[in-house]
């Protein structure tokens, strides 16, 4: 009886997971980008938002890749690097500037796209 009880729960869980995966795979590419990595778009920044004055921020997934640096590229480098990284990041395509209390200046993003990364180097 106990085995039947737990078996039913396991079966329900597996069925729910299968349905969920089927739904994910049936979405067009633009909807989920690729299996759950959210597309680059506007989202509310809860830290800076106030009631009636939301602040929006660009967040989401963008494509990047890394590969061995071509020999031709290495010859042009002041300090040759063996690996090349091509990266795009979710950044604001358009924004407005907001000044908060204490003269703190922030951006309120109005449109997003995958473009040049500026804060990705270590």
């Amino acid at each position: 009886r106990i085995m039947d009880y737990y078996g039913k729960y396991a079966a329900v869980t597996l069925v729910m997971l299968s349905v969920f995966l089927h739904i994910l795979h049936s979405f067009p590419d633009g909807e989920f980008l690729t299996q759950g990595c959210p597309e680059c778009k506007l989202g509310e920044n809860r830290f800076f938002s106030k009631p009636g004055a939301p602040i929006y921020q660009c967040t989401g997934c963008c494509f990047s890749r890394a590969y061995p640096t071509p020999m031709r590229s290495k010859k042009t480098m002041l300090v040759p690097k063996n690996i090349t990284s091509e990266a795009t990041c979710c950044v604001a395509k358009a924004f407005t500037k907001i000044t908060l209390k204490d003269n703190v200046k922030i951006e309120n993003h109005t449109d997003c796209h995958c473009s040049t990364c500026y804060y990705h180097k270590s």
Partner: protein
Amino acid sequence: MKTINCYLLLICWKAICGNICELSNITIAVEKEECRFCISVNATWCSGYCFTRDPVYKYPPVSSVQQTCTFKELVYETVKIPGCADHAESFYSYPVATECHCESCDTDNTDCTVRGLGPSYCSFNQNQSKE
């Protein structure tokens, strides 16, 4: 049991809804400048999608808040490059990624850019395949 099932579903959800940065097969070109040809070599490297965000507060600038799909582990492999009329064969070592992750771009060993020449760029017209 209900709790276990909930945790199981949550774990599966987290596994699915993560960054998708993984190994993929690529072809790289290795140049033999003296003989003016390239050979093609198959390797595995990293590509995919990483979660990023654009900070709304930028003063002072905050570094390393954006991640890129890059190598976590790599090994070096060596390939023999054929010679030509006046030049003997030679060997060339190139990096091969064995594991990938979303991480900040390490400028110590990586040229961090938006677009490069691509892994299969060859300065010469001739290409020889080698696996």
